[in-house]
């Protein structure tokens, strides 16, 4: 009897988690499978779960030059922002993570709070500023505005990595006559570089996923999310297979990154 109860208990937990995983995964599966359907199958209210896949939708979106233009815009904007974030964030987080000075907690909190500035309060003044400087719709203005949320996230996460370096290593280097800059360059930086790269990639996805900033601050330099959103609002008869295909295309880079870094993430989540 006890064995029976135990096995029921075990199976309930599995059933519960499978239901949860179904709810998490089903929308993603449905969008991906719909992108391989014909438009006739999509409009059919009797859902077709088994269908003959076509690449028609992908052909349609990749034939459009705009898709590639927006993809390129996205790549350029995200890369520049990631690079700037890395360049500005690394030395700052090194100082905050490694040294003690007064009001450090206030500084840290202030940096973190910038990430939560209301989007409209951030965007409307910047829109006016970039317009009056004649910089509206340039790579510089967009990337600089993106720093408002990538830089705080990068710094907060990077501080933890610098804190985790045993201070003895740095002390030893200092005793041998290294200045703070040399310690950072020769000792600390190489140790944390892999993790910093992970965090930089995270800031890349933050920018990649963003819609709001790009929507307000771009006209010709539209990145992919804005293009995708525009695709989904065409008139009354939305071309759903194509929309699903674009959405999937937009989702691919973050998913690829998640899969690439899964080893690191699993390590992180199993608490090591």
């Amino acid at each position: 009897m006890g064995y029976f109860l135990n096995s029921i208990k075990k199976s309930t937990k599995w059933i519960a988690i499978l239901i949860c995983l179904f709810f998490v995964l089903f929308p993603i599966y449905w969008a991906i499978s719909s992108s391989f359907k014909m438009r006739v199958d999509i409009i059919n209210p009797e859902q077709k779960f088994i269908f003959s896949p076509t690449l028609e939708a992908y052909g349609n979106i990749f034939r459009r030059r705009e898709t590639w233009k927006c993809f390129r815009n996205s790549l350029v904007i995200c890369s520049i922002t990631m690079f700037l974030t890395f360049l500005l964030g690394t030395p700052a987080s090194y100082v905050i993570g490694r040294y003690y000075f007064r009001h450090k907690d206030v500084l840290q909190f202030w940096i973190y709070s910038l990430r939560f500035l209301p989007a409209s309060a951030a965007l409307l003044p910047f829109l006016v500023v970039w317009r009056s400087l004649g910089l509206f719709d340039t790579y510089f203005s967009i990337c600089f505005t993106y720093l408002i949320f990538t830089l705080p996230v990068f710094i907060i996460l990077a501080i933890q990595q610098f804190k985790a370096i045993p201070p003895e290593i740095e002390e030893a280097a200092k005793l041998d006559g290294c200045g703070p800059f040399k310690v950072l360059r020769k000792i600390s930086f190489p140790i944390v570089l892999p993790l910093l790269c992970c965090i930089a990639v995270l800031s890349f996805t933050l920018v990649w996923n963003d819609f709001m900033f790009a929507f307000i601050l771009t006209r010709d330099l539209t990145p992919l999310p804005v293009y995708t959103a525009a695709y989904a609002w065409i008139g009354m008869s939305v071309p759903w297979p194509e929309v699903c295909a674009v959405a999937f295309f937009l989702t691919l880079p973050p998913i690829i990154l998640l899969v690439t870094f899964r080893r690191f993430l699993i390590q992180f989540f199993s608490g090591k």
Partner: protein
Amino acid sequence: MKKNTPFFLLFPALIVLLVLCIVPLGGSVYLSLQDRDLRTPKEVNFVGSSNYLELLHDPRFWNSLKVSFSYMGLVTFSSIIIGLTLTYLCTEFKGKTKAVILIIFLLPFMIPRVSAAIIWRFMFFPIFGIFSYFLRLFHIPPIAFFASPMPAFFAISIVDMWQWAPFIAVLLVSSIDFLPREVVDSAELDCSKFQKFRYVILPLLKPTIFFLILIKILESMRAFDLIYNITKGGPGTATETLDMYAFYRGVLWSGEISYASAMSVVMLVITIVLMNLIWKVAKKWVTF
């Protein structure tokens, strides 16, 4: 302890962050006192508080404020509750299985919000959407999700929960591993699993949960991308949040950017109050 802190390494980032802080804060207050219009390049006059007075008499502003707050409340409450349930479920698993579950739970959060919004809008679509199909299986008449206020509101909330509840679970599960081992392990000796979760782990997690609640509140104030891509604020103004109305008034429909800035100042005040609350909590519980 260490005398010669190399502050010069801090300066480049600090200068950029200062600009990024001052322009929004000062800029929105400055703009809100003017009568600037993006469409007509005319002289800009200072009009004092008239934008704010106009706000007081704008029913659409009050509506959007109401929508913002009810959205915030609903989404925060439900995603924390669901997140906690998922956390409990995850603690039943160990090792590799747990790690894989957590990675899958992270998936909805990694998806761009635009894609998430589009996927769900497609699923909620009236005639050929998969939801209508499921409802028909159970002989329930189809719901036109985007035609009436309440269903539209819930449809948006479900998408937000789909993204956030598993993510909250991921954060909580991984912070359980940082709790004092002895306390958690000693509970294992004479408690059932649920008791251990309810009376040992949950109280220890309280600071983290409170932190997550406040962060979720702040995060749900910037739901523009989600709502715009599901309902565009419709039907009517039933799902129009404050930042959405500000963007519509300030940029998309008409260029009354000063009026919109007055709204964003209101949002700033709300955010600053909440941030102060977080700061107090953080000082009490979290050591930097």
